[in-house]
């Protein structure tokens, strides 16, 4: 964490992520208006002292809706990576630790899910289950489980071949204890990086689904939904699209920067080779 703060890029990422979390947690309390309240005289109104970021196509306050949108995006993103991480890491560790037929079965299922383009799979699962936040979270969780499982399995395979794990086994330490004490602590680095990257993309996919009308439903505010409903009015009121678009971009950029900085901080090989080519 300290390395992250020392790194300029990581610090910028942390700041953006911090702002997004701040908006998600505190935003609804400091929002000037109810995000669903309609002010007839503020329909498509440009930014003013009453509506700092203008009014939307129905006369609702864009700033208040953007702040509430932050809560939904962050909530969906964090819940998805927490669930996908928990399920994926469990499956990956079990597959990598026990190997054999169980490993083959789990990884073939993961390979199959991996073969579907991300947005396509999420879209179809939501289409089948119906549009509700719970279903949206379920769809995105299914989409992101394979990435966690693959990384956890790969890392577990490498850790379990280490002499200290062999030694623990020969001393008769239980599998559960070996996994908890030796495997999990040693695979946290790649999993942490995957968390930030998946979080960024989960927010993007949630926004995409909401844009298509298959995610968060009106009158709730979501950045993707705000972009979708604002699109017919871009000529008259460009701020309808600019505010939610920038919100998504800076949030996702923040997570991408943190992910990149974490990758550097946790991989000394990359750090020493070059202050990484992959990073700004």
């Amino acid at each position: 964490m300290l390395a992250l703060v020392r790194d300029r890029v990581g610090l910028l990422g942390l700041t953006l992520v911090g702002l997004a979390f701040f908006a998600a947690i505190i935003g609804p309390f400091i929002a000037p208006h109810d995000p669903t309240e309609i002010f007839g005289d503020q329909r498509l109104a440009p930014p003013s002292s009453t509506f700092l970021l203008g009014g939307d196509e129905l006369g609702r306050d864009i700033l208040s809706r953007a702040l509430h949108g932050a809560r939904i995006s962050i909530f969906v993103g964090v819940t998805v990576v927490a669930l996908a991480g928990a399920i994926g890491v469990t499956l990956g560790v079990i597959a990598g630790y026990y190997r054999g037929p169980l490993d083959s079965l789990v990884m073939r299922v993961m390979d199959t899910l991996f073969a579907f383009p991300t947005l396509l799979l999420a879209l179809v699962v939501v289409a089948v289950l119906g549009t509700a936040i719970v279903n949206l979270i379920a769809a995105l969780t299914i989409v992101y489980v394979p990435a966690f499982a693959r990384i956890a399995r790969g890392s577990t395979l490498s850790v379990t071949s280490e002499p200290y794990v062999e030694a623990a086994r020969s001393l008769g330490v239980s599998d559960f204890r070996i996994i908890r004490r030796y495997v999990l602590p040693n695979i946290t680095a790649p999993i942490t990086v995957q968390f930030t990257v998946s979080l960024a993309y989960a927010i993007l996919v949630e926004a995409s689904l909401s844009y298509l009308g298959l995610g968060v439903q009106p009158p709730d505010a979501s950045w993707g939904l705000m972009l979708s409903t604002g699109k017919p009015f871009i000529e008259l009121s460009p701020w309808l699209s600019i505010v939610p678009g920038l919100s998504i971009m800076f949030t996702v950029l923040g997570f991408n920067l943190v992910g990149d900085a974490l990758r550097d901080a946790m991989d000394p090989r990359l750090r020493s080779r070059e202050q990484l080519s992959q990073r700004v």
Partner: protein
Amino acid sequence: MISTVLGRVLAAVPVLIGIAVVSFFLIRLVPGDIVNVMMGEDFGDPALEAELRRLFGLDQPIHIQFADWFGGLVQGDLGTSLRTGRPVMQEILERFPTTLELAVAALVVSLAIAIPAGIVTATRRNSSIDMGARLASLIGLSLPNFWLGILLILLFAVFLRWVPSSGYAPFALSWDHFQFLILPAITLGTSLAAVTMRMTRSSLLEVLGVDYIRTARAKGLSERAVVTNHALRNSLIPVVTVIGIQLGGLLGGTIIVEQIFSWPGLGSLLVRAIYQRDYPMVQGLTMFLAFFFVFMNLVVDLLYVYLDPRLRRHG
């Protein structure tokens, strides 16, 4: 070489079967089933319900249903659309060239941006061009493509009026057709370009640091010759891998980009099928796009067997 190709093709078979199984059972998760969806207001008429169930084979045990469906699948039969009554495969094949054209155009846009940008940033490391391009690539990665599409419409269609904001004209080698392709292709190609540029840069930097490049320089070759003749080809292997991985994103991206620009491809067909709850169409499109994704990854796999002769020997 032939055994390598055969091995890669055979390795894709279990994944294809897995896709078929997932697609089959996914649609069975629909609350109720497609008969309930079809009956709509007639729901509650037991005779009609039984007749429809018999017609779709839903009165059979699940394994028989799967065997029937899978038998049709291997013969290219993806079922019939609930809304148009036409074979799903026929509708997909009619629209596939339109989506393929968009995907290829996006790929061309992305490579046209990414490869030169990757080379420039790698050869001028830590210059202001390098820093600017790397920042741009991270922003490109973080931009939702539907927002970028809206911004491009705003700039090029609304303010500058250079191209139409959306629409489509049947394929022809003329401006009438290509004017509709430009904005969707740029929208879709940008995020792909960001990833490809980052990979080109890091891969080229790695190759530029190895011994044979030092030898080439010591021979007195110009920097251009060193980069283009010696470094670039060897640095392209991981780039091809990344492009292959990104193809899934490209296909996913077409779904949303087609929607923004009213491009009549598979993406807009899928979204319409979802809105209309045309489940056989949703299932058919899911399978088709996933199969195509696997096929493209296979092509990429074989491409780096071609690019890296060592893989031909080791399989």
